[in-house]
């Protein structure tokens, strides 16, 4: 009880100090406490691991000016409690690193007005809530191009987590990339209703491969699908971190996240008092993610993938240029147009040609 009370008092003091001072001098005397809330275990070797790599980068760059705390494997319905507790302990900047945390973040943020929140993906900002995300779809487009070159069965298998726009537009973009090479490409999708469940992810990969898919894309966090692709002699892509070593024969490329620079930037903003709610959506050119070296590809295939990647990076190629037609045949974006960021982030339909049930 006493420990708790002391912690609360410390937190209250820090908050009071923050409210009245909020100056660099204060920050130097007391390091800025930065909290990180992860949706998965820090050792998932994927999404959460890479956020933790970013956290370590923050500590490395900022040294004694920051003090970080990470809470891993937090369920979405428990996030508000964790955030409140971090705030009480004096954390003034909290990164809530999952789309599943966006709604809880929006609920808890007004109750903790002295804390700055940074939600990794989301749909709107608030007075003390920023959004940050990377345009992973650019990597998905490259995956589609590569998959179309590597697939003999002309069928991509996609292990999807939840039917949220982030996943839906990724599936669309993979196919856009694949169709740019071969319009006859098909996709099969299995929803596993989890971000992290290695066993079920592997089961999904087995099912897809048994049904003739020979390139596996995963939108979940563990290396299990890629490892299984390796075992079964088909190809796959790594997710969030460079997963080459899990599948030396199957790995084509991985989308490798890099949050560290952003974390440094935002912590500095809090310390010098310039933090404002922002909405950052960084593409390949922002450095927020990169593609791991292309492996198991012929030089021609690799150079094509590089060309596509560079075109996306420089903006010469945009995956959401019209015409975009919904599965039901209606036009979402006419020819000559381009989907806006808001449209991309709210995408709740598959393109025509993707014959997959979209859970509602």
């Amino acid at each position, binding site marked *: 009880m006493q420990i708790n009370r002391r912690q609360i008092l410390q937190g209250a003091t820090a908050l009071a100090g923050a409210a009245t001072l909020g100056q660099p001098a204060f920050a130097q005397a007391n390091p800025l406490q930065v909290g990180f809330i992860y949706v998965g275990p820090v050792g998932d070797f994927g999404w959460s691991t890479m956020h933790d790599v970013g956290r370590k980068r923050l500590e490395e760059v900022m040294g004694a000016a920051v003090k970080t705390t990470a809470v891993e*494997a937090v369920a979405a319905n428990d996030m508000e409690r964790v955030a409140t507790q971090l705030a009480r302990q004096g954390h003034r900047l909290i990164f809530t690193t999952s789309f599943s945390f966006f709604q809880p973040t929006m609920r808890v943020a007004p109750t903790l007005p002295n804390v700055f929140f940074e939600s990794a993906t989301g749909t709107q900002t608030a007075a003390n809530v920023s959004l940050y995300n990377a345009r992973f779809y650019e990597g998905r487009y490259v995956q589609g191009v590569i998959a179309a070159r590597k697939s003999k069965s002309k069928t991509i298998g996609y292990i999807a987590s939840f039917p949220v726009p982030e996943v839906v537009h990724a599936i669309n973009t993979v196919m856009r990339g694949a169709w740019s090479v071969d319009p006859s490409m098909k996709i099969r999708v299995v929803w596993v*209703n989890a971000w992290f469940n290695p066993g079920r992810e*592997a089961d999904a990969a*087995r099912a897809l491969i048994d049904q003739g898919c020979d390139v596996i894309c995963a939108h979940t966090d563990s*290396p299990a699908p890629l490892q299984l692709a390796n075992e079964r002699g088909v190809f796959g892509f790594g997710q969030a971190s460079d997963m080459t070593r899990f599948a030396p024969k199957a790995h084509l490329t991985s989308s490798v996240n890099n949050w560290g620079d952003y974390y440094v930037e935002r912590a500095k903003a809090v310390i010098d008092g310039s933090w404002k709610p922002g909405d950052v959506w960084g593409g390949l050119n922002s450095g927020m993610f990169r593609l791991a070296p292309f492996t198991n590809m012929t030089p021609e295939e690799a150079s094509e993938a590089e060309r596509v990647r560079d075109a996306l990076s420089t903006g010469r190629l945009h995956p959401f240029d019209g015409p975009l037609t919904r599965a039901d045949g209606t036009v979402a974006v006419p020819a000559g147009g381009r989907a806006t960021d808001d449209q991309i982030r709210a995408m709740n339909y598959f393109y025509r040609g993707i014959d997959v049930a979209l*859970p509602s």
Partner: protein
Amino acid sequence: MTMFEAILLTIITASTPLLIGAIGQLVCERSGVLNLGMEGMMIMGAACGFAAAILSGNSYVGVLAAILAGMAMSLIFAVLTLGLAANQVASGLALSIFGLGLSGVIGAPFVGAKRDQMAKLDLPVLTDIPLIGKALFGQDPFVYASFALVIGVWWFLARTKSGLVLRACGENHASAHALGYPVLKIRLLAILFGGGCAGLAGAYLSLVYTPFWSPGMTAGRGWIALAIVVFASWLPWRVLAGAYLFGGITILQLHAQGAGVKIPSQFMAALPYLVTILVLVIIMSRRGGQQAAPASLGTPFVPDR
């Protein structure tokens, strides 16, 4: 390999950890002890098994380490519930949480380490049986072990005197005690058996199912194994049926999704649970609502009373 074989193979893979975990838990519960620490014991088995396999380079050393880890975890539970007559539900829940945390610490140096899947053990001649041969007899040793465990546990409980004594402890520990049977010792052995099986199930996850270590990788399978024991109304053959029913529907719904069946995926994901509950209801209604649980299940036993 035909589609039928492929699906059967995947179902076996998905069902085996549930079966191994549940059959161990069944013995434990038949002796009158409810150990909700299944998830914690299982994941400790996964972590220690993987760690030992990496360090020794031998999968069988990993398996042994996993069994020992599961037993060590269950020993903690035994000390609390048998030695101190603590509440079994609370102790079991604590064990689950403890195991999830401790396994993360033990496994931390092994995150990202890679191992090849444990070698399969083909049974000659039998693998040539059409359709099911390859799927049933071209498996890893765990699958054979799981079937052997079901047969062994059935034989032990139904056909041996020791099995009868164990059941007596579960049905009425005071009577068993009055007859001069060492209730606590029998329960200790049953708990250790349950722990060993949970550890073995964990080893299956980290050495065969998805051969790497990742914290939380059991993803609730321990709880499902617990539920299967209830589903099976504490009978070994029904544990087999329950594990394969659950595993089978889990895999079939993934295949149905991949094949483009237009049913919401959330419903598909819930299907294994729905069907299991439905079957349970049918079984129970046929039994006329008869109470199937061991009568002393979950009740602490203090010898001197």
